């Protein structure tokens, strides 16, 4: 081994100081601009933070690919779902007439919307791909209304940074940041391929988040909560997915 020269020692010391200072500055900037995902702790936190921060810096406003009608999958695959609970079966037997979507949390006017209320909102459709983390996919036309319209109607407060959303089936809940919540393709889907949204595909109401994997598109949606922090929800990791070992941000 060569002895370390004084010049080398000073240079190394300066580089280390600059590195630490740089990391501290990056950390503060990341917090300010919302580049840290809620599941940033632990062994895989560094990778998740890099992925989420990179996507937020580069793809906040990009649009998911939309496809021509001819590319709609002839045989879409509705992933298996657990046997529906009693509450869901009661709604199903009644034709979902009493199904309601609650909008609460950091909003000026909390809402409780029926499916008919949602149908009165501006109707849009998009032909996008559902992508499962396992590797399979299908394309369908989704009919409904952008989430941003509902949030605006509820008077979402400027402090809100995330939308937490719940399925009627416990414990199935997710959350997205405002970049995705206000994204024009993030969608409350009531219909699929020119019909009502079938139950296996999440009917009567599903949140479609086409820039993320399928598990963020929660089926049987009943509640949206606007919040400035995810710490108070569940274990504070952002959604049920990280509690089950899966990444919160599924845009990859």
């Amino acid at each position, binding site marked *: 081994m060569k002895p370390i020269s004084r010049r080398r020692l000073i240079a190394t010391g300066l580089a280390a100081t600059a590195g630490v200072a740089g990391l501290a500055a990056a950390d503060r900037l990341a917090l300010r601009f919302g580049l840290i995902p809620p599941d940033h702790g632990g*062994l*895989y936190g*560094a*990778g*998740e933070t*890099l*992925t989420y921060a990179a*996507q937020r810096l*580069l*793809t906040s406003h*990009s*649009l*998911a*690919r939309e*496809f021509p009608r001819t*590319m709609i*999958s002839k*045989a*879409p*695959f509705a*992933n*298996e779902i657990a046997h529906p609970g009693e509450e869901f079966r009661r709604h199903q037997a009644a034709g979902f007439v009493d199904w309601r979507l609650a909008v609460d949390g950091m909003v000026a006017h909390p809402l409780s919307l029926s499916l008919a209320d949602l149908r009165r909102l501006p109707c849009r459709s998009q032909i996008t*791909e559902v*992508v*499962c*983390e*396992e*590797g*399979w*996919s*299908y*394309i369908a036309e989704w009919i409904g209304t952008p989430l941003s319209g509902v949030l605006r109607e509820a008077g979402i407060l400027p402090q809100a940074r995330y939308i937490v959303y719940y399925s009627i089936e416990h414990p199935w809940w997710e959350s997205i940041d405002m970049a995705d919540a206000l994204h024009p393709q993030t969608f409350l889907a009531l219909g699929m391929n020119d019909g009502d949204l079938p139950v296996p595909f999440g009917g009567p109401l599903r949140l479609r988040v*086409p*820039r*993320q*994997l399928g598990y963020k598109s929660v089926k049987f949606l009943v509640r949206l909560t606007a919040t400035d922090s995810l710490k108070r929800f569940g274990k504070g990791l952002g959604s049920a997915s990280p509690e*089950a*070992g*899966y*990444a919160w941000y*599924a*845009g*990859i």
Partner: protein
Amino acid sequence: MPTSDSKPDTPRHAAFVRVTHWLTFVCFAALLVTGAEIVISHPRFYWGETGNVNTRPLFILHIPSSREIVPTGYGYVMPDQNGWSRYLHFETAWALVFTGLVYGVAGLWTGHFRRNLVPERGNRSWRAYLERIALYVRRKPPNPGEAVSYNVLQRTTYVVVIFVLFPLVILTGLALSPSFNSAIPAVVDLLGGRQSARTLHFFVSCILLLFLVVHVTMIAFAGFRSRMRAMITGRAAYREERT
């Protein structure tokens, strides 16, 4: 000492080559294991944009699956390892990209690529390749110079692995990210659609695995201990070479 331009204290491999080599090895091993775990959750491959269990596959791996929905013919379902596998896959992918950047910049800066990897001017001919292949086929011992420098086949293989296969496996992997595809849709479209990108990602990974197997086998033939020492400490032990 073997050649005039290598001084006795010149390391066989530069420090940045050794460090990035082993970082790449660790990342690749983790990516391979976690990638296999992810494949197990859907061991079916398709071509085009979409594909699922209702679609005719391009081919099927006849292995058990970690999901009930996949008809495998096996009477059991493997445990689900996708959560941590996906976390680790993407984390080590980042580490591999950073390692590759350091290696790429250092390789250009030091002239490592030009000097050690690109085939020498006199060897850029089919004859040079055929002559070196003939040496392998006749099981002739390597020239003494090959202990300190790569031959034309080694150089070509490393160039293809470093500048074609690794960029391709990263690109096909990125084409599986729905957010990346929303920002740069041209990549997934050029690859022929999402399922084509997934299938290509699998194929390129298989070729990289094949490279790893051949690479380790050749090192075992050439003298495992001395080659490992050269890649760890940088010192080549010429006398131990089986020349």
